[in-house]
Protein backbone atom coordinates (compact mmCIF):
# COMPACT_ATOMS: atom_id res chain seq x y z
CA UNK A 1 0.00 0.00 0.00
CA UNK A 2 2.84 2.29 0.98
CA UNK A 3 4.59 1.29 -2.19
CA UNK A 4 1.53 2.09 -4.26
CA UNK A 5 1.06 5.54 -2.78
CA UNK A 6 4.73 6.29 -3.34
CA UNK A 7 4.39 5.19 -6.93
CA UNK A 8 1.30 7.35 -7.32
CA UNK A 9 3.06 10.38 -5.94
CA UNK A 10 6.03 9.83 -8.20
CA UNK A 11 3.78 9.36 -11.21
CA UNK A 12 2.11 12.67 -10.46
CA UNK A 13 5.38 14.58 -10.22
CA UNK A 14 7.11 12.92 -13.17
CA UNK A 15 5.11 14.54 -16.01
CA UNK A 16 5.42 17.99 -14.46
CA UNK A 17 9.16 17.57 -14.04
CA UNK A 18 9.47 16.21 -17.57
CA UNK A 19 7.46 19.11 -18.97
CA UNK A 20 9.55 21.70 -17.14
CA UNK A 21 12.70 19.93 -18.24
CA UNK A 22 11.59 19.80 -21.85
CA UNK A 23 10.41 23.39 -21.92
CA UNK A 24 13.68 24.41 -20.29
CA UNK A 25 15.75 22.52 -22.85
CA UNK A 26 13.90 24.12 -25.73
CA UNK A 27 14.19 27.55 -24.21
CA UNK A 28 17.92 27.20 -23.64
CA UNK A 29 18.82 27.89 -27.24
CA UNK A 30 22.54 27.69 -28.02
CA UNK A 31 22.17 29.73 -31.21
CA UNK A 32 19.34 30.49 -33.65
CA UNK A 33 21.11 27.79 -35.73
CA UNK A 34 20.68 25.31 -32.88
CA UNK A 35 18.49 22.61 -34.42
CA UNK A 36 17.67 20.56 -31.36
CA UNK A 37 13.90 20.11 -31.42
CA UNK A 38 11.65 17.58 -29.69
CA UNK A 39 11.62 14.20 -31.44
CA UNK A 40 8.08 14.81 -32.73
CA UNK A 41 9.45 17.59 -34.96
CA UNK A 42 12.15 15.47 -36.63
CA UNK A 43 12.06 13.32 -39.81
CA UNK A 44 8.73 14.88 -40.76
CA UNK A 45 8.89 13.75 -44.41
CA UNK A 46 9.26 10.12 -43.39
CA UNK A 47 6.51 10.39 -40.79
CA UNK A 48 4.10 12.15 -43.15
CA UNK A 49 4.75 9.65 -45.95
CA UNK A 50 4.05 6.80 -43.51
CA UNK A 51 0.73 8.49 -42.63
CA UNK A 52 -0.04 8.87 -46.33
CA UNK A 53 0.74 5.25 -47.17
CA UNK A 54 -1.48 4.14 -44.28
CA UNK A 55 -4.43 5.48 -46.33
CA UNK A 56 -3.71 4.00 -49.78
CA UNK A 57 -5.52 5.11 -52.92
CA UNK A 58 -7.04 2.29 -54.98
CA UNK A 59 -5.51 1.72 -58.42
CA UNK A 60 -7.41 3.70 -61.07
CA UNK A 61 -8.78 6.19 -58.52
CA UNK A 62 -8.58 9.90 -59.29
CA UNK A 63 -6.00 11.64 -57.10
CA UNK A 64 -6.72 14.97 -55.46
CA UNK A 65 -4.19 17.00 -53.46
CA UNK A 66 -3.57 20.57 -52.33
CA UNK A 67 -0.66 22.51 -53.82
CA UNK A 68 0.84 25.55 -52.15
CA UNK A 69 4.26 27.02 -51.42
CA UNK A 70 6.37 29.53 -49.53
CA UNK A 71 4.90 29.33 -46.05
CA UNK A 72 7.87 31.39 -44.75
CA UNK A 73 6.90 33.64 -41.86
CA UNK A 74 3.18 33.73 -42.70
CA UNK A 75 1.92 31.98 -39.56
CA UNK A 76 -1.41 33.82 -39.42
CA UNK A 77 -2.04 32.71 -43.00
CA UNK A 78 -0.91 29.15 -42.17
CA UNK A 79 -3.55 29.01 -39.48
CA UNK A 80 -6.29 30.13 -41.90
CA UNK A 81 -5.04 27.84 -44.66
CA UNK A 82 -5.29 24.81 -42.38
CA UNK A 83 -8.86 25.75 -41.43
CA UNK A 84 -9.78 26.12 -45.11
CA UNK A 85 -8.06 22.93 -46.35
CA UNK A 86 -9.73 20.92 -43.58
CA UNK A 87 -13.08 21.83 -45.23
CA UNK A 88 -12.04 20.23 -48.54
CA UNK A 89 -13.41 16.79 -49.34
CA UNK A 90 -11.55 13.92 -50.97
CA UNK A 91 -8.06 15.34 -50.44
CA UNK A 92 -5.16 12.90 -50.02
CA UNK A 93 -2.38 15.24 -48.92
CA UNK A 94 -0.89 18.72 -49.21
CA UNK A 95 2.37 19.80 -50.85
CA UNK A 96 4.43 22.85 -49.86
CA UNK A 97 6.73 23.79 -52.75
CA UNK A 98 9.65 25.00 -50.62
CA UNK A 99 10.58 27.98 -48.45
CA UNK A 100 8.98 26.45 -45.42
CA UNK A 101 11.09 28.80 -43.30
CA UNK A 102 12.18 32.37 -43.90
CA UNK A 103 15.64 32.28 -42.31
CA UNK A 104 16.47 28.54 -42.45
CA UNK A 105 15.97 28.22 -38.69
CA UNK A 106 14.73 25.20 -36.74
CA UNK A 107 12.22 27.20 -34.74
CA UNK A 108 10.58 28.49 -37.91
CA UNK A 109 10.23 25.01 -39.37
CA UNK A 110 8.73 23.89 -36.08
CA UNK A 111 6.34 26.88 -36.04
CA UNK A 112 5.09 26.01 -39.54
CA UNK A 113 4.73 22.34 -38.63
CA UNK A 114 2.75 23.25 -35.53
CA UNK A 115 0.11 24.63 -37.90
CA UNK A 116 0.34 22.09 -40.73
CA UNK A 117 0.21 19.11 -38.37
CA UNK A 118 -3.36 20.19 -37.64
CA UNK A 119 -4.36 19.34 -41.20
CA UNK A 120 -6.68 16.35 -41.54
CA UNK A 121 -4.25 15.03 -44.17
CA UNK A 122 -0.45 14.62 -44.16
CA UNK A 123 1.78 17.12 -45.94
CA UNK A 124 5.11 16.87 -47.73
CA UNK A 125 7.67 19.51 -48.64
CA UNK A 126 10.50 20.17 -51.07
CA UNK A 127 13.40 22.35 -49.97
CA UNK A 128 13.44 26.06 -50.94
CA UNK A 129 16.22 28.64 -51.09
CA UNK A 130 15.21 30.20 -47.76
CA UNK A 131 15.50 26.77 -46.11
CA UNK A 132 19.14 26.65 -47.23
CA UNK A 133 20.23 29.95 -45.70
CA UNK A 134 22.87 29.84 -42.97
CA UNK A 135 22.81 26.38 -41.43
CA UNK A 136 19.45 25.55 -43.03
CA UNK A 137 20.91 22.47 -44.75
CA UNK A 138 21.51 20.34 -41.65
CA UNK A 139 18.43 21.91 -40.04
CA UNK A 140 16.08 20.96 -42.89
CA UNK A 141 17.69 17.51 -43.11
CA UNK A 142 17.10 16.99 -39.38
CA UNK A 143 13.54 18.31 -39.27
CA UNK A 144 12.16 17.25 -42.66
CA UNK A 145 14.61 14.87 -44.34
CA UNK A 146 16.10 14.38 -47.81
CA UNK A 147 16.49 17.25 -50.31
CA UNK A 148 15.84 14.89 -53.25
CA UNK A 149 13.32 12.10 -52.79
CA UNK A 150 10.42 10.41 -54.52
CA UNK A 151 7.34 8.44 -53.56
CA UNK A 152 4.48 6.69 -55.29
CA UNK A 153 0.90 7.30 -54.19
CA UNK A 154 -1.91 5.60 -56.08
CA UNK A 155 -0.99 5.73 -59.76
CA UNK A 156 1.29 8.77 -59.45
CA UNK A 157 5.00 9.03 -58.75
CA UNK A 158 6.08 12.28 -57.13
CA UNK A 159 9.69 13.38 -57.65
CA UNK A 160 10.79 16.12 -55.25
CA UNK A 161 14.04 17.80 -56.30
CA UNK A 162 16.22 20.59 -54.93
CA UNK A 163 16.58 23.24 -57.69
CA UNK A 164 17.93 26.08 -55.52
CA UNK A 165 21.05 26.53 -57.64
CA UNK A 166 21.95 29.97 -56.34
CA UNK A 167 22.35 28.66 -52.79
CA UNK A 168 25.13 26.39 -54.10
CA UNK A 169 26.73 29.20 -56.11
CA UNK A 170 25.62 27.51 -59.33
CA UNK A 171 28.15 24.74 -58.84
CA UNK A 172 26.29 22.30 -61.06
CA UNK A 173 24.92 20.16 -58.19
CA UNK A 174 21.35 21.52 -57.97
CA UNK A 175 19.30 20.07 -59.56
CA UNK A 176 21.23 16.83 -59.25
CA UNK A 177 20.74 15.53 -62.81
CA UNK A 178 22.56 12.29 -61.96
CA UNK A 179 19.79 11.57 -59.46
CA UNK A 180 16.90 13.04 -61.44
CA UNK A 181 17.38 11.24 -64.80
CA UNK A 182 17.02 7.67 -63.47
CA UNK A 183 14.10 8.85 -61.33
CA UNK A 184 12.29 10.12 -64.45
CA UNK A 185 13.13 6.96 -66.39
CA UNK A 186 11.68 4.59 -63.79
CA UNK A 187 8.17 5.28 -62.59
CA UNK A 188 8.38 2.57 -59.88
CA UNK A 189 5.21 0.97 -61.22
CA UNK A 190 3.18 4.18 -61.30
CA UNK A 191 1.17 5.21 -64.37
CA UNK A 192 2.20 8.88 -64.44
CA UNK A 193 4.65 11.19 -62.75
CA UNK A 194 4.91 14.69 -61.32
CA UNK A 195 8.08 16.71 -60.62
CA UNK A 196 8.04 19.23 -57.78
CA UNK A 197 10.77 21.73 -56.95
CA UNK A 198 11.07 25.22 -55.52
CA UNK A 199 12.84 27.41 -58.08
CA UNK A 200 11.34 27.12 -61.58
CA UNK A 201 13.79 26.75 -64.50
CA UNK A 202 12.52 30.07 -65.90
CA UNK A 203 13.92 31.89 -62.85
CA UNK A 204 17.34 33.57 -62.48
CA UNK A 205 17.98 31.56 -59.31
CA UNK A 206 18.02 28.30 -61.31
CA UNK A 207 21.53 27.14 -62.25
CA UNK A 208 21.86 28.46 -65.84
CA UNK A 209 24.16 25.61 -66.86
CA UNK A 210 21.54 23.06 -65.84
CA UNK A 211 18.48 24.78 -67.29
CA UNK A 212 18.60 23.13 -70.71
CA UNK A 213 19.43 19.61 -69.43
CA UNK A 214 16.62 19.90 -66.86
CA UNK A 215 13.99 21.16 -69.28
CA UNK A 216 14.97 18.54 -71.86
CA UNK A 217 14.90 15.70 -69.31
CA UNK A 218 11.35 16.72 -68.34
CA UNK A 219 10.25 16.94 -71.98
CA UNK A 220 11.51 13.40 -72.55
CA UNK A 221 9.95 11.96 -69.37
CA UNK A 222 7.03 9.60 -70.15
CA UNK A 223 3.60 10.54 -68.77
CA UNK A 224 4.80 13.64 -66.93
CA UNK A 225 1.60 15.37 -65.82
CA UNK A 226 3.36 18.67 -65.00
CA UNK A 227 6.27 20.26 -63.18
CA UNK A 228 5.33 22.30 -60.10
CA UNK A 229 7.20 25.15 -58.37
CA UNK A 230 6.98 27.86 -55.76
CA UNK A 231 9.36 30.82 -55.31
CA UNK A 232 7.46 33.35 -57.47
CA UNK A 233 4.66 34.02 -54.93
CA UNK A 234 2.30 34.15 -57.87
CA UNK A 235 0.24 31.39 -59.43
CA UNK A 236 0.55 30.43 -63.06
CA UNK A 237 -0.05 27.47 -65.37
CA UNK A 238 2.07 27.81 -68.51
CA UNK A 239 4.15 25.97 -71.11
CA UNK A 240 7.11 28.40 -71.27
CA UNK A 241 9.28 26.17 -73.46
CA UNK A 242 6.51 25.11 -75.89
CA UNK A 243 7.62 21.52 -75.48
CA UNK A 244 4.38 20.08 -74.17
CA UNK A 245 5.49 20.30 -70.52
CA UNK A 246 3.14 22.26 -68.25
CA UNK A 247 4.73 24.27 -65.44
CA UNK A 248 2.49 25.10 -62.48
CA UNK A 249 3.52 27.77 -60.01
CA UNK A 250 1.90 27.96 -56.60
CA UNK A 251 0.62 30.92 -54.67
CA UNK A 252 2.59 31.74 -51.53
CA UNK A 253 0.80 31.53 -48.17
CA UNK A 254 0.88 35.34 -48.20
CA UNK A 255 -1.35 35.41 -51.30
CA UNK A 256 -4.09 33.59 -49.38
CA UNK A 257 -4.79 31.15 -52.20
CA UNK A 258 -4.02 27.48 -52.72
CA UNK A 259 -4.66 25.04 -55.54
CA UNK A 260 -6.85 21.96 -55.46
CA UNK A 261 -5.24 19.65 -58.01
CA UNK A 262 -7.06 16.66 -59.50
CA UNK A 263 -5.14 14.11 -61.56
CA UNK A 264 -6.40 11.11 -63.55
CA UNK A 265 -5.69 9.07 -66.70
CA UNK A 266 -2.26 9.13 -68.30
CA UNK A 267 -1.67 12.83 -67.63
CA UNK A 268 -5.06 14.55 -67.32
CA UNK A 269 -5.41 17.22 -64.67
CA UNK A 270 -7.67 19.97 -63.44
CA UNK A 271 -6.62 22.80 -61.13
CA UNK A 272 -8.96 24.93 -59.04
CA UNK A 273 -7.65 27.96 -57.15
CA UNK A 274 -9.21 28.48 -53.73
CA UNK A 275 -9.14 31.70 -51.73
CA UNK A 276 -8.86 31.43 -47.95
Amino acid at each position, binding site marked *: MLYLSKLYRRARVAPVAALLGLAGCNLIE*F*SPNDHRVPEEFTSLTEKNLARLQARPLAAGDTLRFIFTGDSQQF*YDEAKDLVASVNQQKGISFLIVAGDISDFGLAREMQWVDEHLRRLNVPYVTVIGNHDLVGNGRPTYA*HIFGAFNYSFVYGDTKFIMVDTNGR*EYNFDGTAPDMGWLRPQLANRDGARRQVVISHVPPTNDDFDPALRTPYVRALAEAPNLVFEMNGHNHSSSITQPYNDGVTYVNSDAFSERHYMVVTVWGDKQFRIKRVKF
Partner: protein
Amino acid sequence: MKKLLFLTLLLASLGAQATPAPIDTTTATAADAPPAGTPERKWFRPKHLVLQTGGGLGMVAAGAGYEFAKDRLETDILIGYVPKKYGGSTLSLASLKFMYSPFRLPVGEKFQVVPLTVGAYFSYTHGTLNDELKGQYSSDYYWFSTDTRYGPLLGSRLTFLAPPVAATGQPRKISVYYELGSNDLYLASWLNNQKGGLGFGQLLTLALGVKADF
Protein backbone atom coordinates in the same frame (compact mmCIF):
# COMPACT_ATOMS: atom_id res chain seq x y z
CA MET B 1 2.70 31.00 -17.27
CA LYS B 2 5.17 33.33 -18.97
CA LYS B 3 2.83 36.27 -18.51
CA LEU B 4 2.76 35.44 -14.83
CA LEU B 5 6.53 35.44 -14.72
CA PHE B 6 6.69 38.86 -16.34
CA LEU B 7 4.11 40.18 -13.94
CA THR B 8 6.05 38.87 -10.96
CA LEU B 9 9.20 40.54 -12.22
CA LEU B 10 7.39 43.79 -12.81
CA LEU B 11 5.84 43.75 -9.36
CA ALA B 12 9.16 42.90 -7.81
CA SER B 13 10.80 45.85 -9.50
CA LEU B 14 7.98 48.21 -8.53
CA GLY B 15 8.24 47.00 -4.97
CA ALA B 16 11.92 47.75 -5.01
CA GLN B 17 11.24 51.23 -6.27
CA ALA B 18 8.77 51.89 -3.45
CA THR B 19 11.38 51.12 -0.82
CA PRO B 20 14.46 52.91 -1.98
CA ALA B 21 16.35 52.46 1.30
CA PRO B 22 19.27 50.04 1.62
CA ILE B 23 21.01 49.75 -1.69
CA ASP B 24 24.23 47.83 -1.56
CA THR B 25 26.35 50.14 0.53
CA THR B 26 29.07 47.54 1.16
CA THR B 27 30.19 47.29 -2.43
CA ALA B 28 29.99 50.99 -3.10
CA THR B 29 32.14 52.08 -0.15
CA ALA B 30 34.66 49.33 -0.64
CA ALA B 31 35.03 50.24 -4.29
CA ASP B 32 35.10 53.97 -3.64
CA ALA B 33 37.67 53.85 -0.89
CA PRO B 34 40.06 50.95 -1.13
CA PRO B 35 42.22 50.41 1.96
CA ALA B 36 45.57 52.14 2.03
CA GLY B 37 48.26 50.30 0.13
CA THR B 38 45.83 48.74 -2.29
CA PRO B 39 47.22 48.76 -5.84
CA GLU B 40 45.16 50.91 -8.22
CA ARG B 41 42.74 48.99 -10.39
CA LYS B 42 43.92 49.29 -13.98
CA TRP B 43 41.20 50.76 -16.19
CA PHE B 44 41.19 47.76 -18.47
CA ARG B 45 40.97 45.17 -15.74
CA PRO B 46 37.52 43.55 -15.95
CA LYS B 47 35.26 43.77 -12.96
CA HIS B 48 33.82 40.31 -13.37
CA LEU B 49 34.04 37.01 -15.23
CA VAL B 50 30.99 35.34 -16.77
CA LEU B 51 30.02 31.82 -17.80
CA GLN B 52 26.63 31.13 -19.34
CA THR B 53 24.67 28.67 -21.43
CA GLY B 54 21.89 29.44 -23.91
CA GLY B 55 20.39 32.78 -24.79
CA GLY B 56 21.45 32.15 -28.38
CA LEU B 57 25.05 33.00 -27.44
CA GLY B 58 26.49 29.49 -27.22
CA MET B 59 26.15 26.13 -25.56
CA VAL B 60 28.96 27.52 -23.44
CA ALA B 61 29.85 31.19 -23.48
CA ALA B 62 32.60 32.66 -21.33
CA GLY B 63 33.85 36.18 -20.97
CA ALA B 64 34.46 39.21 -18.84
CA GLY B 65 32.72 42.46 -18.14
CA TYR B 66 32.80 45.95 -16.76
CA GLU B 67 30.47 47.82 -14.46
CA PHE B 68 29.55 51.50 -14.44
CA ALA B 69 27.22 53.90 -12.66
CA LYS B 70 27.66 52.26 -9.25
CA ASP B 71 27.51 48.84 -10.88
CA ARG B 72 24.04 49.42 -12.25
CA LEU B 73 25.24 49.35 -15.83
CA GLU B 74 27.23 46.44 -17.11
CA THR B 75 28.89 45.38 -20.33
CA ASP B 76 29.88 41.79 -20.91
CA ILE B 77 32.02 40.46 -23.72
CA LEU B 78 31.47 36.76 -24.39
CA ILE B 79 32.94 34.11 -26.62
CA GLY B 80 30.54 31.24 -27.22
CA TYR B 81 30.77 27.78 -28.68
CA VAL B 82 28.18 25.47 -30.25
CA PRO B 83 29.24 21.95 -31.32
CA LYS B 84 28.42 20.69 -34.82
CA LYS B 85 26.03 18.12 -33.40
CA TYR B 86 23.61 20.86 -32.29
CA GLY B 87 24.39 23.77 -34.63
CA GLY B 88 24.86 21.92 -37.91
CA SER B 89 28.46 23.15 -38.04
CA THR B 90 30.88 24.12 -35.30
CA LEU B 91 29.96 27.68 -34.42
CA SER B 92 31.88 30.30 -32.50
CA LEU B 93 30.07 33.42 -31.40
CA ALA B 94 31.37 36.78 -30.27
CA SER B 95 28.79 38.66 -28.24
CA LEU B 96 28.40 41.95 -26.50
CA LYS B 97 25.80 42.45 -23.79
CA PHE B 98 24.59 45.68 -22.21
CA MET B 99 22.57 45.46 -19.01
CA TYR B 100 20.90 47.80 -16.60
CA SER B 101 19.95 46.58 -13.11
CA PRO B 102 18.30 49.44 -11.22
CA PHE B 103 17.59 47.69 -7.92
CA ARG B 104 19.37 45.52 -5.41
CA LEU B 105 17.52 44.00 -2.48
CA PRO B 106 19.61 42.73 0.43
CA VAL B 107 18.59 39.36 1.82
CA GLY B 108 20.42 38.91 5.09
CA GLU B 109 24.06 39.96 5.25
CA LYS B 110 25.44 37.73 2.58
CA PHE B 111 22.90 37.77 -0.21
CA GLN B 112 21.35 40.22 -2.61
CA VAL B 113 18.54 39.80 -5.07
CA VAL B 114 18.69 41.79 -8.27
CA PRO B 115 15.05 41.46 -9.31
CA LEU B 116 15.30 43.08 -12.70
CA THR B 117 17.98 43.29 -15.32
CA VAL B 118 17.01 44.71 -18.69
CA GLY B 119 19.39 44.80 -21.57
CA ALA B 120 20.29 44.07 -25.13
CA TYR B 121 22.86 41.97 -26.88
CA PHE B 122 24.59 41.85 -30.19
CA SER B 123 26.24 38.71 -31.49
CA TYR B 124 28.29 37.65 -34.46
CA THR B 125 28.43 33.99 -35.45
CA HIS B 126 31.42 32.52 -37.22
CA GLY B 127 31.27 29.16 -38.96
CA THR B 128 27.83 29.00 -40.61
CA LEU B 129 27.70 26.90 -43.77
CA ASN B 130 25.93 29.03 -46.36
CA ASP B 131 27.36 32.35 -45.53
CA GLU B 132 26.59 34.76 -48.37
CA LEU B 133 29.70 34.48 -50.50
CA LYS B 134 30.64 37.54 -52.49
CA GLY B 135 28.41 37.77 -55.54
CA GLN B 136 26.15 34.93 -54.40
CA TYR B 137 23.15 37.21 -54.09
CA SER B 138 22.20 40.64 -55.31
CA SER B 139 22.42 43.19 -52.51
CA ASP B 140 18.77 43.04 -51.43
CA TYR B 141 18.18 39.32 -52.01
CA TYR B 142 17.82 38.49 -48.31
CA TRP B 143 16.94 41.44 -46.12
CA PHE B 144 18.47 39.84 -43.02
CA SER B 145 21.97 38.79 -42.05
CA THR B 146 22.61 35.13 -41.30
CA ASP B 147 25.44 35.91 -38.87
CA THR B 148 24.68 39.05 -36.91
CA ARG B 149 21.85 38.95 -34.40
CA TYR B 150 20.67 41.36 -31.79
CA GLY B 151 17.87 41.27 -29.31
CA PRO B 152 16.50 42.25 -25.93
CA LEU B 153 16.96 40.43 -22.67
CA LEU B 154 15.32 40.55 -19.29
CA GLY B 155 16.33 38.65 -16.18
CA SER B 156 17.09 38.46 -12.50
CA ARG B 157 19.95 37.34 -10.37
CA LEU B 158 20.92 36.17 -6.93
CA THR B 159 24.23 37.41 -5.55
CA PHE B 160 26.35 35.96 -2.80
CA LEU B 161 28.61 38.55 -1.18
CA ALA B 162 31.88 36.80 -0.47
CA PRO B 163 34.45 38.20 1.95
CA PRO B 164 36.84 40.66 0.23
CA VAL B 165 40.16 39.45 -1.13
CA ALA B 166 42.50 39.57 1.85
CA ALA B 167 45.54 40.95 -0.01
CA THR B 168 43.79 43.74 -1.91
CA GLY B 169 40.55 44.41 -0.09
CA GLN B 170 38.70 44.07 -3.39
CA PRO B 171 35.06 43.13 -2.84
CA ARG B 172 33.99 39.80 -4.28
CA LYS B 173 30.58 38.61 -5.42
CA ILE B 174 29.28 35.48 -7.01
CA SER B 175 25.95 35.70 -8.82
CA VAL B 176 23.73 33.22 -10.59
CA TYR B 177 21.35 34.64 -13.16
CA TYR B 178 18.78 33.81 -15.76
CA GLU B 179 17.80 35.88 -18.75
CA LEU B 180 14.82 35.56 -21.04
CA GLY B 181 15.57 36.94 -24.47
CA SER B 182 14.74 36.85 -28.12
CA ASN B 183 16.33 38.04 -31.34
CA ASP B 184 15.59 40.39 -34.21
CA LEU B 185 14.41 37.61 -36.56
CA TYR B 186 12.01 36.01 -34.09
CA LEU B 187 10.63 39.43 -33.17
CA ALA B 188 10.16 40.36 -36.83
CA SER B 189 8.20 37.14 -37.36
CA TRP B 190 6.05 37.89 -34.32
CA LEU B 191 5.36 41.47 -35.40
CA ASN B 192 4.09 40.20 -38.76
CA ASN B 193 1.73 37.71 -37.14
CA GLN B 194 -0.60 39.46 -34.76
CA LYS B 195 -3.66 37.30 -35.43
CA GLY B 196 -2.71 34.31 -33.34
CA GLY B 197 -0.41 32.58 -35.82
CA LEU B 198 2.61 32.93 -33.55
CA GLY B 199 2.58 33.25 -29.78
CA PHE B 200 4.96 35.58 -27.94
CA GLY B 201 6.11 32.69 -25.76
CA GLN B 202 7.39 30.90 -28.86
CA LEU B 203 10.01 33.62 -29.36
CA LEU B 204 11.66 33.30 -25.99
CA THR B 205 15.08 31.94 -25.26
CA LEU B 206 16.56 31.30 -21.84
CA ALA B 207 20.11 31.85 -20.64
CA LEU B 208 21.51 30.60 -17.34
CA GLY B 209 24.78 31.92 -16.05
CA VAL B 210 27.25 32.59 -13.29
CA LYS B 211 29.05 35.87 -12.76
CA ALA B 212 31.99 36.36 -10.41
CA ASP B 213 33.12 39.85 -9.37
CA PHE B 214 36.69 40.02 -8.17
